[in-house]
């Protein structure tokens, strides 16, 4: 599968390991990525809070660049960028007047022809029960799949099938041999951009998320959003301060979990960059240790 890539700013900085793990697994799952040249920031959590047209023009320019570079399909691994790009596209498709205003501001032609995909959609297409048969290892852990807000809401923009109890990530985890748990915080908010301004709120919200995951026996939380990851991982000290207790549970990007099942090393997947140490490893497949559920899945 050949597809355009909009990495977004986080993947060049605080979420570097998300980019590293994506690029590490790509050639092994048949994914060819072509980065949009000359991309800019999407405006993320700030532009819409201050100026509506700014919040449309920044992502619209990215889409216009993609069109110029003949990119028909674009994967956006950061859930926040994905949401902003999809919002801008939806709004410009709905209102000709808005679209005209945005086109005038950015001074670039825009047709709205690019299909925008999040990471779960792309992985779901590539990691079929058939293709995972060839994986050398599996990821035999109990996991809490955490979707957060931006991959499932709002329904006018993100066409998630089950808004309150999504299962797409859970299905992917099953395919690589993990046991996704039924838990209550899948789509609760982590506090997003309050990471800097109201760290106490982030501490409380993330503490509630980790507590539920831990109580249900999860060995890792799996995410697909740099903001969720930074709040749950880098803000662990604040979380523990609010909760008054320690949490050792690691938080992995979905691409890192898949990378471990592909037999890649922790370093290739950037696991050493996490604040909370990750000791989970992929287990090599052999006749004895393949769990029954995985055998059934790949049968």
């Amino acid at each position, binding site marked *: 599968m050949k597809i355009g890539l909009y990495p977004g700013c986080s993947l060049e900085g605080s979420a570097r390991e998300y980019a590293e793990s994506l690029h590490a697994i790509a050639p092994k799952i048949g994914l060819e990525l072509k980065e949009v040249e000359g991309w800019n920031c999407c405006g993320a959590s700030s532009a819409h809070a201050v100026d509506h047209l700014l919040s449309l023009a920044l992502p619209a320019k990215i889409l216009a660049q993609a069109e110029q570079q003949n990119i028909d399909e674009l994967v956006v691994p950061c859930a926040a960028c994905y949401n902003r790009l999809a919002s801008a596209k939806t709004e410009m498709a709905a209102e000709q007047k808005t679209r005209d205003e945005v086109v005038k501001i950015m001074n670039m032609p825009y047709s709205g022809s690019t299909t925008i995909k999040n990471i779960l959609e792309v992985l779901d297409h590539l990691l079929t029960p058939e293709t995972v048969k060839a994986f050398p290892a599996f990821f035999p852990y109990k996991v809490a799949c955490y979707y957060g807000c931006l991959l499932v809401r709002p329904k006018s923009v993100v066409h998630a099938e089950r808004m309150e109890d999504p299962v797409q990530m859970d299905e992917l985890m099953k395919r690589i041999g993990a046991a996704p748990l039924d838990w209550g915080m899948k789509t609760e908010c982590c506090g997003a951009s309050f990471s*800097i301004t109201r760290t106490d709120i982030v501490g409380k919200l993330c503490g509630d998320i980790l507590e539920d995951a831990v109580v249900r026996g999860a060995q890792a939380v799996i995410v697909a959003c740099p903001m969720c990851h930074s709040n749950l991982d880098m803000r662990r000290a604040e979380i523990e301060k609010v909760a008054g207790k320690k949490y050792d549970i690691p938080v992995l990007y979905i691409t890192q979990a898949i990378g471990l099942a592909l037999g890649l090393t922790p370093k290739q997947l950037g696991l050493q960059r996490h604040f909370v140490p990750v000791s989970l490893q992929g287990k090599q497949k052999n006749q004895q240790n393949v769990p029954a559920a995985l055998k059934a899945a790949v049968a």
Partner: protein
Amino acid sequence: MLHSEPHEDSFLAGTIRQKTGVSVQRCYQCGKCSAGCPAASEMDIAPSVVLRHLQLQSSEADKHVLGSYSIWLCLTCHTCIARCPMEVDLPKVMDVLRAESLKHKLVHPKAKDIVSFHRSFLGTIRRFGRLWEMGFVADYKLRTGHLMQDIAVAPVMFEKGKLSLIPQFRKKLVSRIFAARGGNI
């Protein structure tokens, strides 16, 4: 029907309808938005009460909303609209309220840090085209005076390769957009 009252235009309810197409009069005060809101416990007026204020169509109620802390505490998580039986798009309403609050200089004193966060974030993008995290946080600290905040996190981020000390200059990527829409920042 209340929502076609002719005097709506002189109040926030009219501004909101004009900018977003959302009618605040559709809300029947079930309170689901306030029940699901992750930030409600920190707010001075709960989300459903913000809507009630807007329905009243009075300058006093409008001013109260624009000066509230709540509009800046909204995380845009979209839990409210996901559960609203009347599909009142509260996150869109909140975006209009924040812009109006800035315009009329009615920002709640406790929200100054949050406004500074947005200004530092967007200012960094205006200057560099992309978010240079190090420069953004330094700018935020200078704006707010919270110089010691996260002093323990930054060195670890740097050691783990998550912070870059030197920015790339890509201002040209966004200069046109900010020339047109940067006035509010």
